[in-house]
């Protein structure tokens, strides 16, 4: 029985020069007790559709046509009446639990206010109802937690509170907009389980908006695929993921890193490189290529790092061991993966290797020299040249006021001040072409590029000093899957041709499986185990690794 019916829904943004269509004639139906997955890359309009259902589109956007029928109610009939369905008939969950709760009201105040807005209950009854709800979504000591402020909850708990707020007036439709994107794998699976459980128990109709195909495969009954405002395909999850009809869906599915096997390259369906054969890396002739000898390039011994609260006070009491007695080695020419959840210390280790943090104790050897003991700046520069880093966020890691050529030129001239300007320009062009950008990009500013292209600029900048070790800190986690596939392919090619050693840091296990030869698993600053990638995935030894592998969303689960 169809519960929610979206007919020909269109959302326009009237800009000064043109009208942007964020959604065009979208038709979606959702049944009760069913989870519909809405997937698409950024800018595909999936969130727009979610918000349009309750008419919560930011100015200057507006729902320009179409109707939304909920049960037998046309809720878009007039824009005033939609307010009384919000929260009451339709609940909405947002992506980031850190920002979706009011920081200065207690959880209880926010629950009671929401309940009393829609249901005629006394304060006492509302309180009892809230406490029961908090228990239902899995919050322990609900009576006590009721009076806590949002910042006193961890990310996963906060998302539970958000869910309880969305459900407190017993809506029949739940719209979850990327509900687990900001969460760790283990928390993610708990939240998804909770949503599945509530869907069954309360017979909800659920729209789950996400970019993560693994999540879709494990939770959604049906899937709708969107691309630039259009609905591309809709159908049974299994059918869409295993035998997609549309080209776009095919490329989307093939970009998802498989969790059960290692593939050499990602297949990029949509715009296959025409000149794939001559995919030569232009900087190769400039590169003083190191022969790979079977030795450790990086060796880390008993590394510790604690962040003290304050220099003067509370130094020992509150200090957190971000990295606790970690030792491992990276062989020349290999890709070493570090995985762990947020707060596991993986980024801290990366920053210590590139010498942005000083370790509290322990040594880091690079090419058999202990770089943590180097005092002289000129000595240190030699190592900085050989170790380069690629950061997670391509938006904040490039200086917006510099042209791309200046961004790339900076490390070159720093280490080689005498380079002639002609040579420098040629070098920059070679670097840009090596990361598959055109020479024209050199004269543009970072904001003119998309996220994936910016990450390519970051890679070009990192390669400019001809490093031996490339530290990649979550290089693709801010990118869409199809772009991620391209960037990972590029990194693989570069590594092969330039004999790079890569330290690859990620929370995303399938990605790490595709990229790395060996993997170290971190938890709370401690290294749980280090082993070869295939061994780790096939027969993990440590309990925590087993748990992570069990919990990661698997796109292949659709076959079972």
């Amino acid at each position, binding site marked *: 029985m169809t519960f929610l019916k979206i007919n020909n829904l269109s959302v326009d943004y009237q800009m000064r020069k043109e009208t942007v269509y964020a959604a065009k004639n979208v038709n979606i139906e959702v049944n009760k007790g069913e989870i519909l997955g809405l997937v698409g890359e950024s800018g595909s309009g999936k969130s727009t559709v979610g918000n349009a259902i309750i008419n919560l589109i930011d100015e200057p956007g507006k729902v320009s046509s179409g109707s939304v029928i909920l049960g037998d109610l046309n809720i878009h009939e007039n824009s005033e009446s939609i307010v009384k369905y919000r929260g009451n008939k339709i609940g909405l969950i*947002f992506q980031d639990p850190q920002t979706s709760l009011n920081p*200065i009201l*207690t959880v209880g105040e926010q629950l009671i206010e929401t309940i009393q807005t829609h249901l005629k209950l006394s304060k006492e009854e509302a309180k009892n109802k809230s406490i029961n709800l908090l228990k239902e979504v899995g919050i322990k000591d609900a009576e006590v937690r009721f009076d806590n402020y949002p910042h*006193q909850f961890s990310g996963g708990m906060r998302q539970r509170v958000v869910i309880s707020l969305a459900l407190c007036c017993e809506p029949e439709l739940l719209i979850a907009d990327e509900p687990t994107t900001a969460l760790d794998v283990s928390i993610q699976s708990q939240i998804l389980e909770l949503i599945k459980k509530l869907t069954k128990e309360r017979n909800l109709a659920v729209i789950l908006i996400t970019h993560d195909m693994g999540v879709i495969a494990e939770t959604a009954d049906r899937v709708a695929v969107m691309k630039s405002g259009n609905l591309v395909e809709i159908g049974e999850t299994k059918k869409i993921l295993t035998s997609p009809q549309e080209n776009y869906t095919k490329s989307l599915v093939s970009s998802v890193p498989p969790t059960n096997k290692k593939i050499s390259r990602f297949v990029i369906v949509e715009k296959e490189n025409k000149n794939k054969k001559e995919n030569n890396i232009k900087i190769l002739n400039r590169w003083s290529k190191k022969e790979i000898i079977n030795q450790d390039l990086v060796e880390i011994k008993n590394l510790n790092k604690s962040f003290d609260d304050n220099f003067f006070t509370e130094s020992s009491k509150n200090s957190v061991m971000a990295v606790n007695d970690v030792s491992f080695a990276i062989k020349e020419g290999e890709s070493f993966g570090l995985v762990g959840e947020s707060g596991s210390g993986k980024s801290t280790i990366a920053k210590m290797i590139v010498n942005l943090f000083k370790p509290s104790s322990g040594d880091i050897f690079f090419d058999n020299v202990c770089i943590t003991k180097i005092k002289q700046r000129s000595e240190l520069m030699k190592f900085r040249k050989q170790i380069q880093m690629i950061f997670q966020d391509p938006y904040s890691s490039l200086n917006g006021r510099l042209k791309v050529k200046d961004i790339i030129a900076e490390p070159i001239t720093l280490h080689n001040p005498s380079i002639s300007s002609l040579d420098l320009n040629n070098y920059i062009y070679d670097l840009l072409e090596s990361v598959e950008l055109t020479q024209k990009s050199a004269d543009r500013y970072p904001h003119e590029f998309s996220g994936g292209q910016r990450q390519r600029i970051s890679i070009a900048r990192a390669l400019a000093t001809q490093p031996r070790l490339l530290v990649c800190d979550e290089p693709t986690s801010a990118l869409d899957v199809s772009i991620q596939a391209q960037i990972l392919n590029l990194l693989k090619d570069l590594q092969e041709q330039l004999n790079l050693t890569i330290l690859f840091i990620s929370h995303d296990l399938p990605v790490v499986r595709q990229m790395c030869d060996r993997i170290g698993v971190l938890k709370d600053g401690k290294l749980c185990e280090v082993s070869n990638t295939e061994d780790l995935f096939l027969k993990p030894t440590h309990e925590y690794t087993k748990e992570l592998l069990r919990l990661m969303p698997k796109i292949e689960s659709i076959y079972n």
Partner: protein
Amino acid sequence: MVGEETSDEERAELRETLGLMDPIHVQFSRFIVNASKGEFGISYQLRRPVSELIVERLPATIELVVISALIALITGTLLGVYTGINRKGFLSDFVLAISLLGVSLPTFVIGILFIYLFAVILGILPSFGRGEVVDIGFWTTGFLTVSGLKAIILPSVTLSLFQMTYIIRLVRAEMMEILQTDYIKFARARGISENSIKYKHALKNGLIPVITIAGINIGTLIAFSIITETVFQWPGMGFLFIQAVQFVDIPIMSAYLVFIAFVFVMINFIVDILYYLIDPRIRVKGDTASG
């Protein structure tokens, strides 16, 4: 302190008793020791202990500053919220245009314009002084008489204008920013009424930075009151200070400056405590993110 017919011996003797012949560091350490006891010596011009003068003038300034601070905070917040919520509209544009005038016109010009309009042309408010005051032992107040209340209107409005416009712009910016946040969007999605969203959810968050500014403000008001008090011949500390400057009455000037510094420190201390009470994120330390 000396007249035409003071003899050279008397002048030398006076220098000696005032300690002006001692080396600088001796004079300075004596000043520090006395100041820590609250003694700032004797006014050269009025020949009375400075601490007595300050205490006598303090009520006038405090009353003026408190009234101006209240005017600035209340009207500033109200207009800030209004302009932050109704971003387009004639009244918002009008308030913002006026606030620009308030920021850019110097206090004494506004004061003189007010005197011209209300005292000279309309003749409804006094142009100078505190009016009749009632002495209640340790404090003299103008709040208890009609003329006292009338007298405080012009100077306090003049003094508050600059701060008020500042607060309007601050509150407006805060409100506009907060109304864009995720938690406001989530509150809308739960169907919370617009009034509650604006005045409970958004305003409470928006007022947190206002408290910091308000604290610094009150200090600035005391400092700015020198000009206002001079324009309106208000018998407060600022007026005393200006007179002292004209006569190079160093004990009064140093006492006044030390007092202002003390007030600034105290206000900032109180603001920090208020912050602690208002913002739960600061209040609970140590047991964040449990469970």
